[in-house]
Every structure is written in C-alpha cells, then in structure tokens.
C-alpha cells in the first residue's frame, strides 16, 4: 500500500501548504488575481457614478464599439445614465440601421432611433473573427457578470498590459496581459495612451481614468437594476428585522406559560 500512503502524505502536505502559504507561486501561464478596486457601485449603498458612466459610454462608443457589440442594450437605456432625450436621439442618429422591407419589398438604411439596439460592429461571428485575427471579441452586455472577479477583473485587464517577461514567447498577434487566463490575449491594448478620447467634462483621459470609466459603464450595463435592487434590499431587510423582533416577542409571550 505504499503508493496509497505516499499519496495520502502528499494530500496532507498539499492541504497543509494551502492552509499555511495561501496561494502557491503562480506558474508562468496562470493569470494573476485582479486587485480589489474601489468603485462607486460597491457595497450595500453603492450607486453608479453617473459622470463616470457617461464618460465610460464615450470610451465604449469611440474605442470598444469598433470591435465589441452590446446586443442587450438600446440607445433609450442611456437615459438611465442621465442623458437627455435629445442627446439620446442624437447619439442614436449617428448610426445607420438596416430596416425593412418597405412597401416595395426593399430593405433600406435609416438613421438609428432610441428604440434601436446598439449597433453591432460586425454582422456575424465569422466577420468578427476575420477582422480580429481569428479571435472573437465577446459581446460586452453582461461581461461584468460573466467573468470571475467582475468589475475588478475588467479594470485590471484593461490596465494590465505590459511587455512579456524575459523568456516568454508570444504567439502571433498576441499581447501579454498578466490578468488574462494564459496571459496571452488576442486583443491589442485598447486603451493605449493619455488623450485617446477627449472627455467633454474636462477630465484628463489617462489610461487608468478611461479604464475606470468604461468599467463603470459596463457594470451599469450588466446590472442596470443594481441601484433599485440594493435600495429595496436595505428596506426589506430593515422591515424584516423589525418584524422578526416583534414576532419573537409574540412567540415568547405565547410560550411563557409552557416553561
């Protein structure tokens, strides 16, 4: 039974190491755990910083939307971020939407309306891959919920590009990013330098700032219900706590003759 015993020892050892040492040294290809970033929407009372989310939309529109779709969103949803009706209409009208058929049976292009979904950069997956060296830029509608680490991860990923360390050979068309699984990502650094976008409110567009803003925007996009959800939660739990106290008092009164 020697193999069993040595395996048992290995098991105990591994267990012990986990308890004592925390995460063992990471192999070269393994992704780093994204650091905890403070966001306006964290915590029990968190809300979306509207100014940041609006700037984030601008980053999405000017940068990310060249490659990434957001199929679950309509332009009208932007009103929730504090944009006015007129602004939403103007934004929607900047894209051309395929519509039809008309009375003659023809498809036609028309300017977008607030009720239209965000226009996708590619008509299908094949086109998206063809334009991106075979890689597929995922839809960003719920990306914050679709990744371990959520907003922390997205922010870490967007700011986590660097030159590969000594001895790491990048595959063709790949970029080194220590937060991405496998550390080689097909997306070239989308936020490359200060001033890549020009924020209307005068905020300096550093990479860190653009990344935070677009992450805030994507977090809102993934969970537009977050604010009302948390508000409702606080009220309901307060209510239940009070009701629980009263119920407990009633229960004690009813049971007082039993003990």
């Amino acid at each position, binding site marked *: 039974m020697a193999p069993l015993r040595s*395996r*048992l020892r*290995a*098991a105990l050892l*591994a*267990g012990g190491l986990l308890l004592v040492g925390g995460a063992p040294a990471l192999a070269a290809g393994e992704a780093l755990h994204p650091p905890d970033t403070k966001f306006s929407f964290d915590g*029990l009372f968190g809300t979306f910083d509207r100014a940041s989310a609006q700037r984030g939309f601008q980053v999405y529109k000017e940068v990310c939307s060249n490659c990434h779709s957001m*199929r*679950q969103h309509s332009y009208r*949803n932007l009103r929730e971020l504090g944009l006015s009706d007129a602004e939403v209409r103007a934004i929607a009208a900047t894209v051309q939407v395929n519509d039809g058929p008309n009375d003659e049976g023809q498809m036609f292009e028309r300017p977008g309306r607030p009720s239209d979904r965000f226009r996708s950069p590619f008509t299908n997956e094949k086109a998206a891959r063809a334009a991106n060296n075979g890689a597929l830029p*995922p839809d960003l*509608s*719920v990306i914050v*919920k*679709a*990744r*371990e680490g959520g907003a922390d991860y997205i922010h870490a990923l967007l700011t986590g590009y660097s030159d590969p360390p000594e001895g790491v050979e990048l595959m063709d068309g790949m970029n080194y990013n220590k937060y991405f*699984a496998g550390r080689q990502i097909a997306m070239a650094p989308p936020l490359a330098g200060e001033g890549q976008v020009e924020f209307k409110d005068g905020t300096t567009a550093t990479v860190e700032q653009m990344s935070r803003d677009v992450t805030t925007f994507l977090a809102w996009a*993934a969970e*537009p*219900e977050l604010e009302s*959800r*948390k508000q*409702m*939660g*606080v009220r*309901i*739990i307060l209510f*239940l*706590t009070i*009701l*629980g106290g009263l*119920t*407990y008092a*009633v*229960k*004690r009164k*009813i*049971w007082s003759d*039993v*003990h």
Partner: protein
Amino acid sequence: MAIGLHESEFKNPVIRWVDARLPVFTMMQKEYGTFPTPRNFNYFWNFGGLALVNLVIMIATGIFLAMNYTAHVNFAFDSVERIMRDVNYGWLLRYVHANGASMFFIVIYIHIWRALYYGSYKAPRELLFMLGVVIFLLMMATAFLGYVLPWGQMSFWGATVITNLFSAIPLVGESIVTWLWGGFSVDNPTLNRFYSLHYLLPFVTFGVVFLHIAALHITGSNNPLGIDPKGPQDTLPFHPYYTAKDSVGLIVYFIVFAALVFFAPNLLGHPDNYTPANPLVTPPHIVPEWYFLPFYAILRAVPDKLGGVILMGGSIMILFILPWLDTSPIRSMRFRPLARIALLVWLVSFFVLMYCGAKPPEEPWVLIARLATLYYFAYFLVILPALGAKERGLPLPASISMPVLRGGGPLPAGAMAKPMEKA
C-alpha cells in the same frame, strides 16, 4: 343537521354551511389548529414548513418567469436578459427564482440532516422518510432542468455532461441518451422537453409533499428526545405555539434569502452562465451548481464511468433502505454517544465531498474524495448496522415533559433535553 352532512363546530354561518358539506375547515382545525405536537421541538423542526414555503415561492415566481421566457436555443439567453431588463421587476423574479433554488437545497439539507440526527426515519415513520427522499429526487431533477433553461455555457455543458452519464448503461446507454436529447446532441428539442418537464415536476413534487404531510399526520412528529409522547402533558396544540415559533424561523429564513437576492444575487451562480451557450467552446472547468457538488465528487471518485454513476445514484438511493440499516431501537442521537460521533463525521464527509466536487479532478482532491466517499457509504452500510447491534445507549428519559419541566432527571448533562426553545 341533515343526514349525510358533517357535524360542524364552526359558528360563522357561511363557514358552517361549507364545512357541513366539505369539512375542510374542520380538517384544517384538526391538522393545524389543535394538532397535538410534542412540546420540546427545537428550531430544527422549522425546516419542513420552510421547505413548503420555498416550494410555493418557486412555483409562484416560476409561473411569472414562464410568461416571459422563450424556450428556443436562439432566444432563451436573450429572453432571460430581457426579463432582467425590460420586464417590470423581472430581475426580482429571476433572482428570487435562481436563489430560491439554492435556499431550497439549504433548507432541505438541514431538514434531512435533522431526520438523520434524531432518527426520524425509524419506525413508524419509514414511509414518511421515503416520501421525503422522493421529494428530494424530484427537486434535484427540477433544479437540474431549470438550470438548463437560461441557455448559458454552464447550462449547455452541464446538461451535456449529466445526460451523457446515461451512456454508461451497457447496451442501451447510447440509445437512451439520444432519446433524452431528442437528437444527437443537446439542442433545441432538448431545451424544449427540459422546459416542459421543469414546469411539470414542481407540481408532481407538490403532490408528493401532500402525501408526505398526510403520512406525518398519521404518525405524528418525532422530537429531539426521540421518545413518543405519553399523553397530553407531552404535547401542545400546533396553534398558537408552533405557528408562533415557526413564524420566527420563517422571518430569519426570509432575511437570509433577501440578503442573497438583493446583495449577492450571483454569488452562488457561475459567471460562465452569463456567456451564451456555445457547442463549439468547452469551458475549462464544467462544474454543477453547488448543491450537486457532493454527488458530483462521488461520481468522479470512481475511475470507471458506470461505477461512478452507480455509486452516485446509490448515495441517494441508500436513504431508501436507511430505516432498515439502522437497527438501533433508540431514535435520537442524543442517547447514542458512538453513533452520534459517526454521524457528525458523516456530515464532515458530506462537506468534504462538496469541496472536492468544486475542484478539478486532480490529486489530492481525487484521493480525498475517495476517502470521503468510502466513509459516506461505510456510515450506512457498516457503522450503523454494527452499532445497532453493539452500542449501549444512554438511559432514555421517562417522558418528554419530565426533562422539560424538571430540567434533567436521570439524564447526563450533555444529553439533557435542554430547552433550546426556552427563548
């Protein structure tokens, strides 16, 4: 009182009129009003009622989700996202339903554990217990089917892995899998039938729950001492005593539920399920929902596929014969010092399996899962039968009211029916 009418004791003329013809009010009064209930329940006895509430919540939220859900591979994912965004309070419905499944399993696991600890599966409650196991199986099937509906990556790959298990059956396995799928892979026909069954099974569950409760009201409840009530001094009418006590537990349950739904709605879910199903991309780790992890670990602990499937099925089926494996006449583990330790270790093995189930199938997790699996079965097949013959239990109290009223009597300190409900 005309012949053929029930002799109703209700004063209100309308209630009395109905009750005389269909004595539902008398029945409710008998089964939930005056129903004699052991006076020494602790809060573990709350969980059956909580499970019933949970089932009702699942059905209520499920019906409203179904009004907005589209069971088609091209639209399912988007229809769920539409529920989250455009249906009024749709996010609430969905998060209550998704987390409700988790709450349901938490409640049921505690409920089953209570039965194991206090020997509620023993005579005369064997059938009651077995009906409970049937409910548990139905719940597991329902939850598995439901998890497929949002048609994310884990939905698709979980369905693929689990349905593929049937292919382990010799000779007919492959045909069964094709039959389950309605084709040659998990696809639109699979989604459609899963949706149909997901809608159906909760109502079947409801029927079995009715039988479960009917059986309970024949044998009456067990209690923490595991001894039978000797007379009225040992019981209390269900109302107001246990309606009041159950209400306290119910609110605590709602607080935990609300904390999940409002502040951590995706904590127990898997991020991959927010990526639409893609048959061409296999996720690196396919893991089932947390409540299936112990059984998943047992499945993977066996190197042989068929063996794993048999052991996984056996880990639940064994509960059906538990009443006959445990031959000790003593119900409550309070009076079985050895079996009690063995059962606590069994609980540990259950959690260890749950942990291993979430890990990739590598060492040391496989080995640990094997040891835990071994103990899981040994508890039922070796330890309980052996202890039934060998163990000398502690002396049982003369009656329920004795230790409760006088606080002790012949009991050793630890085994005393400490009135937890002293409150």
